[in-house]
């Protein structure tokens, strides 16, 4: 019983995770939980998964912690050079493309999915996703495309990224050439929620509340997400980081008071095989 646990403590750190990027009228909001797990052990319960690439572009990381940190370091370096050569701040699209180029070229070795979000003066707030494999996705929710900041049409993108753990012992014993086994973690709980809760033309407050609510819902259900909720809001004025500890998060199911609950008519939940 103890032996199979050994490979877990030495497992690569992965972020079974919930990350979200949402655009609103005027910018973007990126949100993430803060749990980094090694197998089932929580290696870091207050990690920061939203890293800065430039002053106006940030990146949400998920999957292998090592891979995503390395990719973000490279992209930050390339973007810095690019900014110097260009003479003005880099656009979100360029940052996303750099991430995509690295992910796609090294797809055999990398196991990380990322969300790039930021604000630039040409396109305004934009969210791009680069899931496993190196696709570049910009998912507009509506068809209209904005040409200037004033007529910005908000778009919406929720993370498709989950945790990826590489269990070497598993691979060897099964003789399967799997590099990774994919656990779709926190994000799976949010598709239906976003279908219902997202709307166009949100304000910054609404977008932030939506992100916090979504991440807290995923944390409540997903074992690989937890800790605190961090959000980063990027707009033309700059960048704001917010931090929501557990007591500031909305409460769900088990913590809500039951109202007209059918469970009231059931007797105790423990199974009694013989009634005395």
């Amino acid at each position: 019983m103890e032996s199979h646990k050994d490979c877990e403590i030495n497992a690569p750190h992965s972020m079974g995770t919930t990350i979200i990027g949402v655009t609103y009228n005027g910018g973007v909001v990126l949100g993430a939980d803060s749990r980094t797990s090694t197998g089932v052990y929580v290696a870091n319960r207050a990690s920061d998964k939203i890293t800065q690439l430039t002053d106006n572009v940030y990146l949400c990381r998920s999957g292998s912690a090592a891979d995503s940190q390395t990719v973000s370091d490279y992209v930050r370096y390339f973007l810095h050079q690019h900014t110097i050569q260009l003479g003005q701040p880099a656009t979100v699209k360029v940052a996303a493309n750099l991430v995509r180029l690295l992910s796609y070229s090294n797809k055999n070795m990398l196991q990380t999915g990322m969300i790039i979000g930021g604000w630039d003066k040409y396109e305004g707030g934009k969210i791009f996703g680069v899931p496993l494999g190196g696709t570049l996705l910009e998912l507009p929710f509506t068809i209209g495309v904005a040409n200037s900041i004033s007529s910005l049409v908000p778009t919406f993108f929720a993370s498709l990224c989950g945790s990826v753990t590489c269990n070497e012992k598993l691979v060897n014993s099964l003789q399967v050439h799997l590099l990774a086994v994919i656990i779709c973690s926190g994000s799976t709980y949010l598709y239906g929620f976003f279908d219902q809760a997202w709307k166009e033309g949100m304000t910054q407050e609404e977008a932030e509340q939506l992100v916090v609510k979504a991440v807290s819902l995923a944390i409540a259900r997903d074992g690989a997400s937890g800790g605190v909720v961090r959000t980063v809001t990027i707009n033309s004025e700059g960048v704001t980081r917010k931090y929501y500890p557990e007591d500031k998060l909305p409460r769900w199911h088990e913590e809500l008071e039951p109202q007209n609950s059918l469970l009231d008519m059931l007797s105790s939940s423990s199974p009694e095989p013989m009634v005395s």
Partner: protein
Amino acid sequence: MLLHLFFLIFVGWQVFEYNGSTIVGMVGKNCFAIASDRRLGVNLQTVATDFQRIYKFHDKLLVGLSGLGTDAQTLYQRLVFRHKLYQLREERDMKPETFANLVSAVLYEKRFGPYFCQPVIAGLGDDDKPFICTMDSTWSSYFMYIGQNLELAKDCVVAGSASESLYGACEAFFKPDMEPDELFEVVSQALLASVDRDCLSGRGGHIYIVTPDDTKEKILKGRMD
């Protein structure tokens, strides 16, 4: 396809971590505490946050069953059956030491197709001496800690997915001969600290403090992540 393969693997290799569970038992001065977490999950998804793992057999005997949820419930039903028959025949309750032997016999019957369950047995024996013990699912190693007689350095037993963290936490917090109130504090802190570091256990705690006169049951509010 890949997902199906993964979930199959999960049950085969990490069957004790399929539902996620944590139990700790600790001995005090003429009392004992047994505590569990409250989460029931299916791999990473949380399905319930009020799952009962500790069962009371009689006033001075509580058993916590960690590991696979279905086996915990089935094992409980089998043990209750055996214990009630014993009560009918002997017209008295079973002593914890005897019960521990019963549990290990029931588990060993299934030596080559075991219940994926690690029990933690805690009770007050003769003269109300606290008794705690745990064993693995096939009784191939049998750890027994008797509260007062052997005067061992470790007077706690742990089981479940956060058991390794719990070893550390219990070592750090435990003192011999604690009164019930202090014991409650120590067990709560050790349990919460350990399950906070485990993805598969948590969502609060369920603690029983048993003295010769009464049993106190308390529900802890913990991190709901």
